[in-house]
């Protein structure tokens, strides 16, 4: 009788338990270390699991690199900097962890995030506790408009900047004016906001939206939508997806061999690298890429490659740059007090952000004014290695334009800081 089963086994309880285990949130990774009081702690929160996890890893690695470099050059005001890094998981967890980092760990500031909903949750805690939060990856315009906060700054570009940067490249190639566009959009805060900005752009430039599908974020098989695209025969497919979905979409679009040009307004280079040889296609906006020709960009790329054996991408740039801005500001001010740093950033202080021109924060919405780029996939026979798979436009806006022309105006996205 060696193969008897326990009496307590019931099919229903198993199903219930199985379901509960599947729904259980990923267990949190503990804070990296508990430091002493003579160090300055910076809290870093970003999604490490889930559909944005692939990007969070670059964010995390770049933040660590930045802190090592900062400590190698004397830390902040002579004190060592310690990075407390955690998986932000979802808005609820992000908010709880932000609160704990501020109240228990006494962090000098918070940096990070990719998910717009989690960034909003963290910003509410930061505003209440009056601690600086630098958003490095959440794009929604609302975060800079109706949801803006005095203590939140944005190194990441807003959706409108992404739409207008890529839109310029598409206009130049005659893919917008008078064309039929079909849009696939990630069905959550980021996607909805992006679709709204994209629609404004199409309306302003005489393009017709012939189809728009909201795609659940957990969807991995796009074949039903690829069949719809084949039937609709659009002049341009706009892919406003997020995270791991972009990789799936690129692979399957290429599998189905559809002839339509592809572009998107939301993009992360790591996901194109993950699609594999011959599968990357289309035109996309990026806030930064590893081929930018400036001394500080080259230095960052070399340091990242030496440490992690791969080039950094746009998300890594965001977290690296934010850390550098924080350290430089606190060193110049000789204080870590958040309100002083906020005033400094609002004063129009300029920073070397590993691009051609220096960047500065707009005082009224706290968006980093900076150059953007539109990249286009290289034909398969011109690709020499897994990373150099695209060609890029020059910096957008161009050298003789104001850095602010791509961003929303006050009228388009009004921000009133809560007291």
């Amino acid at each position: 009788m060696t193969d008897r089963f326990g009496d307590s086994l019931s099919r229903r309880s198993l199903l219930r338990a199985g379901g509960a285990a599947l729904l259980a949130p990923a267990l949190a990774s503990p804070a990296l270390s508990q430091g002493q009081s003579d160090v300055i702690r910076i809290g870093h929160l970003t999604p490490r699991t889930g559909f944005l996890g692939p990007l969070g890893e670059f964010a995390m690695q770049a933040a660590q690199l930045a802190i090592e470099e900062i400590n190698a050059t004397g830390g902040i005001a002579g004190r060592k900097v310690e990075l407390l890094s955690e998986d932000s998981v979802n808005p609820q967890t992000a908010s709880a962890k932000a609160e704990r980092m501020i109240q228990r760990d006494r962090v000098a500031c918070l940096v990070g995030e990719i998910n717009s909903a989690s960034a909003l949750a963290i910003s509410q805690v930061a505003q209440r506790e009056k601690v600086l939060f630098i958003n490095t990856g959440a794009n929604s315009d609302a975060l800079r408009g109706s949801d803006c906060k005095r203590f939140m700054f944005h190194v990441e570009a807003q959706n409108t900047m992404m739409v207008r940067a890529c839109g310029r490249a598409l206009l130049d190639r005659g893919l917008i004016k008078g064309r039929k566009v079909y849009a696939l959009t990630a069905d959550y805060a980021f996607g909805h906001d992006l679709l709204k900005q994209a629609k404004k752009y199409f309306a302003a430039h005489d393009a017709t939206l012939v189809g728009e599908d909201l795609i659940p974020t957990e969807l991995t098989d796009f074949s039903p939508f690829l069949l719809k695209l084949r039937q609709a025969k659009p002049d341009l497919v706009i892919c406003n997806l997020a995270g791991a979905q972009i990789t799936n979409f690129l692979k399957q679009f290429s599998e189905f061999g559809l002839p339509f040009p592809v572009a998107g307004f939301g993009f992360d280079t790591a996901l194109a690298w993950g699609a594999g040889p011959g599968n990357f296609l289309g035109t996309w906006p990026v806030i930064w890429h590893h081929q930018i020709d400036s001394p500080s960009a080259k230095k960052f790329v070399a340091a990242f490659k030496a440490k992690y054996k791969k080039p950094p991408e746009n998300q890594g740039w965001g977290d690296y740059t934010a850390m550098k801005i924080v350290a430089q500001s606190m060193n110049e001010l000789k204080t870590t007090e958040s309100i002083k740093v906020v005033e400094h950033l609002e004063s129009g202080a300029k920073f070397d952000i590993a691009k051609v021109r220096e960047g500065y924060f707009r005082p009224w919405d706290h968006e980093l004014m900076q150059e953007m780029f539109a990249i286009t996939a290289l034909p398969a026979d011109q690709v020499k290695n897994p990373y150099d798979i695209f060609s890029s436009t020059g910096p957008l806006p161009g050298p003789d334009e104001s850095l602010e022309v791509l961003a929303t105006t006050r009228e388009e996205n009004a921000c009133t800081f809560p007291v």
Partner: protein
Amino acid sequence: MQLVFILEQVLNGLLIGVQYLLIALGLSLIFSLGGIVNLAHGAFYAIGAYLTVLLTPTIGFGGALVASPLVVGVLGLLIERFLLRRFYRGDPTLALLLTFGLAMVAEQALRMAFGAAPVPFGIPTWLRGQVFIGDLIYSRYRLSILVVALACVACLWLLLTRTSFGRVVRAGVQNPDMVAALGISLRPYMTAVVTIAVGLAALAGTMMAPVTGVHPAMGAEILTFAFVVVVIGGLGSFWGVVFAALIVGVVRGLTAYAYPPATEAAVYALMVLVLMLRPRGLFGEHIARFE
């Protein structure tokens, strides 16, 4: 035109369903015979995909299609022999915790070894392109993996219904005490069933690697769906799982056509509906010890 298009969606749905099938059948077998809900099943799917990416440069995709399921199958054998075996008689919650833990270990191990970003992989050149059948156009690669998957399902069915091995397994599902009374130990059968089930999951991973992102969480992504298929089909029923996989594929396809935001939700709604009308699933068998 509209009719051809809907037909196309239905056909595509059937093909997607077959991909869930390889995973769902293994899940159902392990549960029916061993009483273990294998939450690590998705992890084997992911490991199969990563192995394919590693092996393809040296032995080609065709070679990986054979080698990857075999290697992962052996891994399954070892896990059954040294871990799962200890839990068949105990509290089912312990087995759940064990397999949940295994799934997390596997996912984090993949993340540490290969990074969280998807690893590049595509369809081999000889399988790229489209097949034209009348008005229908379809991806050559998907049709190819359909053939492989259907062949596997057919072999599994023959194994379960036409061999003495299959007779013991089916008897073990219905009444393990009687099987033991007849002097047959179910242990080697359980080892074989886990090995086959894990091998099939790895095969699914191999076949999906070219058309889906190869990243550490891919196992968790597919597992929920495979569970839904098993629940809809009914435990212990081979054809129930097959039928459910196809239904789920078609429902997804048609919802994508009619109301895209509900593409995933529709499948769960279907599950709720089935459980309300038929709590044992569509073709679920009455298994005394699970009631």
